[in-house]
């Protein structure tokens, strides 16, 4: 076989292979596909072997075999990966009953679970496990031991649920960790790892959120022109082919009908005139009321936090006083949105816009609450820092007393006295552990409130409606209260805020991420069960596709907001002197400086010192600002170009329509002009048209308009020469 023939044969074999690979994409009938497939496969089998004859046959056959094995391996791996996605069947079941919007919440939940799992493994593997395996055991140093005064009550259930007692002096919280620079035979640098994991948590979360946002924006084609094909899309893509259940289908029919009616009304309403002033007044009133509510709730939280600070000094507390803060915050989270919804009825927005306002307001409510909580927490921290100074002096005095007593009681001993029992040493207030405890308590109470709400608000309600219906005057199922609908936005916001608290608290309580992983896992099963057992599908099936990035955007915002307090404490607050991995240092980030000085080669040290020079940092910041400005203006330019192209396409379409119909132009300007020049076939005498020239001249003040006119006129009429003059004169 000659070279040319062989090359041609190889080409044909490649073509047939491509056909085999793409045969699924062709819109052919099965018989035709099978016929072509048979032919192609026979051809390939016959000639693939033949090509190998000659020198490189063995090598070629070997290559082909390895390629096949590799493809098979990839296929198996893909199968394995798909089989590993957890809860896929559960979510598909929810989707078929409730539509894709409710399922999107569960997909979001699953995504969060994945992210938390990674964070948990980071924290656990790099901070908790080393301390447990290679650090000192419980009871060996003061920070790891329960103080003598508390030892009797340390195992009590009430103390443990408050996360005091043995819980407080455990791996869960910041205070347990020792500040030894390296531990164990591996010389593991725990304080450095603690700091790095804390920062890495935020870095990883940021990366993952932004990557998902970019992917979502890609798939959706951006939040595109929903005005371009509204009705066409509604007609051809609104039926959800995944619905396999008669009840959901009924709801879907109803929601499609409602959606069409809405759009029809929108179309007709565009021309309607409304009483703008009344509407504006009502909207201002509504916003004022809502701002008042938000302010009121913020003040309430602040007041309750102050009270809880006073309670912390007293001991005779009932259950209500101890948990007042968490209860009030959770209650506000329940009552606030309902209040907002009622007030929002004054505004009479389009439902889609109303929903966005609602979400924004609930977000502000939660944000305001969270930040008031944080401010109150900071007050507490500062108080503890003051206390610490006193205790430092007291503990030094205690040490001196102990030595003095020892030498006084044992005058014969000349050696150093044995160290004080860890349980007896005077302890500092350790503000970091307190902060960690607060966050853990808040998370736990949030979990409890959510689960209880589902149990009572959905399950109990469903039970009552179902069983009390037999002996009740009106139809409970059809009228009030009927079965509950799944509150997607409320649940998603709850999830987002919970994650914000985790991000804030995980630096002070490494065990918090573990608690969250457990919570998300149980949430998945619990909520899936609750949705299928107690809820009915929505009346208005909510479209999930566009809002997905909205939730991701909220998550991103919360991430930045929760980054701030942690960074502030790392940078500016001094760590406690006797607890945690940074005890004894001026600032927490001193660990990094220490590592650079002691562990890394010296030239890296000088490099970092140069990098930290303000003379280098300020130009770098300026450069970044300039880059942002440049990219911004580039993207604006692209947007403008896009709009121009769209306009051009629209114009081209209109022109096409004109040409086809050969009738009145769609352009208002051209219509006016046609009125001016009614008789196109005759050349009008110049004197008659003088008045009109003037009119047109005045009309043509702006050059754009002139071009327009020029084009239109030249196209539409015969008096070319005359009208060129017109154009020139206007210019």
């Amino acid at each position, binding site marked *: 076989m000659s070279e040319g023939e062989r090359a041609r044969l190889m080409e044909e074999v490649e073509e047939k292979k491509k056909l085999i690979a793409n045969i699924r994409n062709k819109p052919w009938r099965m018989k035709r596909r*099978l016929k072509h497939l048979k032919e192609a496969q026979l051809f390939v089998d016959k000639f693939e072997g033949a090509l190998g004859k000659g020198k490189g046959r063995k090598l070629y056959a070997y290559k082909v075999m390895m390629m096949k094995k590799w493809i098979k391996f990839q296929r198996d791996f893909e199968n394995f990966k798909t089989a590993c996605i957890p809860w896929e069947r559960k979510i598909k079941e929810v989707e078929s009953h409730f539509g894709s919007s409710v399922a999107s919440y569960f997909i979001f939940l699953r995504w969060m679970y994945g992210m938390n799992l990674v964070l948990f493994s980071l924290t656990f593997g790099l901070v908790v496990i080393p301390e447990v395996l290679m650090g000192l055991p419980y009871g060996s140093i003061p920070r790891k031991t329960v103080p003598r005064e508390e030892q009797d009550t340390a195992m009590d259930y009430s103390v443990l649920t408050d996360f005091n007692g043995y819980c407080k002096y455990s791996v869960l919280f910041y205070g347990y960790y020792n500040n030894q620079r390296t531990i164990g035979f591996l010389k593991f640098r725990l304080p450095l790892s603690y700091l790095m994991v804390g920062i890495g948590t935020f870095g990883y979360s940021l990366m993952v959120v932004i990557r998902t946002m970019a992917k979502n924006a890609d798939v959706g084609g951006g939040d595109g022109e929903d005005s371009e094909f509204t009705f066409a899309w509604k007609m051809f893509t609104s*039926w959800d082919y995944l619905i396999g259940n008669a009840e959901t289908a009924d709801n879907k029919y109803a929601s499609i009908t409602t959606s069409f009616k809405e759009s029809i009304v929108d179309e007709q309403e565009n021309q309607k005139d409304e009483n703008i002033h009344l509407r504006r007044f009502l909207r201002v009133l509504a916003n004022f009321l809502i701002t008042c509510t938000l302010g009121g709730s913020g003040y309430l939280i602040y007041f309750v936090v102050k009270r809880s600070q006073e309670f912390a000094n007293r001991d005779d507390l009932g259950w209500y006083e101890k948990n007042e803060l968490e209860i009030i915050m959770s209650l506000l989270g329940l009552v606030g949105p309902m209040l907002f919804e009622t007030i929002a009825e004054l505004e009479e927005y389009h439902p889609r816009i109303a929903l966005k306002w609602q979400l924004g307001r609930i977000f502000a409510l939660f944000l305001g609450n969270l930040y008031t909580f944080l401010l109150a927490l900071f007050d507490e921290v500062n108080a503890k820092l003051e206390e610490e100074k006193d205790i430092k002096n007291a503990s030094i005095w205690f040490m001196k007393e102990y030595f003095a007593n020892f030498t006084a009681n044992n005058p014969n001993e000349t050696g150093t006295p044995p160290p004080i029992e860890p349980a007896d040493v005077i302890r500092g207030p350790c503000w970091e552990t307190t902060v960690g405890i607060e966050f853990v308590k808040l998370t736990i109470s949030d979990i409890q409130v959510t689960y209880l709400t589902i149990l009572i608000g959905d399950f109990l309600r469903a039970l009552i409606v179902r069983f009390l219906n037999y002996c009740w005057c009106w139809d409970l199922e059809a009228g009030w209260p009927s079965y509950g609908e799944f509150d997607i936005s409320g649940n998603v916001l709850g999830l987002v805020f919970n994650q914000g608290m985790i991000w804030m608290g995980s630096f002070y309580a490494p065990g918090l991420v573990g608690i969250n992983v457990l919570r998300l896992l149980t949430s998945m099963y619990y909520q899936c069960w609750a949705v299928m057992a107690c809820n009915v599908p929505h009346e208005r099936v909510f479209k999930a596709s566009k809002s997905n990035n909205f939730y991701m955007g909220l998550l991103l915002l919360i991430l930045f907001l929760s980054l701030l307090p942690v960074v502030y404490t790392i940078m500016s607050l001094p760590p406690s002197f006797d607890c945690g991995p940074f005890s004894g240092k001026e600032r927490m980030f001193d660990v990094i400086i220490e590592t650079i000085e002691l562990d890394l080669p010296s030239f890296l040290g000088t490099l970092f010192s140069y990098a930290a020079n303000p003379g280098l940092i300020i130009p770098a910041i300026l450069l970044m600002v300039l880059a942002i400005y440049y990219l911004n203006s580039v993207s604006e330019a692209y947007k403008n170009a896009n709009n121009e192209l769209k306009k051009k396409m629209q114009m081209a379409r209109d022109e096409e329509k004109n040409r086809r119909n050969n009738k009145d132009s769609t352009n208002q300007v051209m219509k006016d002009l046609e009125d001016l020049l009614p008789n196109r076939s005759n050349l009008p005498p110049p004197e008659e048209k003088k008045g009109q020239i003037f009119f047109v001249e005045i009309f043509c003040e702006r050059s754009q308009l002139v071009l327009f006119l020029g084009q239109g006129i030249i196209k539409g009429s015969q008096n070319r020469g005359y009208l060129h003059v017109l154009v020139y004169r206007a210019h």
Partner: protein
Amino acid sequence: MKNKHLQKISFIILKMFPNFKQQYFLSRLFHRYRDLAPQLVPLDYTNQPDVRLPYELIGSMPELKDNPFRQRIAEVFSEDGEGNMTLDDFLDMFSVLSEMAPRDLKAYYAFKIYDFNNDNFICKSDLEKTLNKLTRNELTEDEVRMVCEKVIDEADLDNDGRLSLEDFQHMIVRAPDFLREVCNFHHRFTSTMRGKMRKKIQEITL
């Protein structure tokens, strides 16, 4: 033995779907087809028997029975255009409507589904029928007329008063929901394969 007739359904079809998961689905699909009418469908397909299941049976499948377009779907995929499907047609339908079919293929078949009078154009009467099926005749005549006019206004590019395949594809390709919700069945099959079934398929193909 069950794997015997797996062999007998075109080996080539099996080769077309070399994915284990898809082979599993394939055998399940055959059994779904057969379960609709066990007395009509033989287990042995080597002789390519000419068996057609009438539309009534197809339209009663759980994936289709709630779908307003089930009759059109059956008509589009059936050879005789009446909705009576052979096994090949059945497999065709499921493969186009699965999640893994490419978007252009789905758009092509969607166009054929919505073209009620089979004239390769979606004209106003087709649109009216589609709309009435979607809303179960809940809209008034004026509203129906208005919507159909708007649709033609929006999507008709070559200005002939009806939608050709190009117009339809141009419009549908930009729709955000098209791939996810429309023209998708999720098989009600478990995604975890039972060990025995997997082994049997492995025996056949390796």
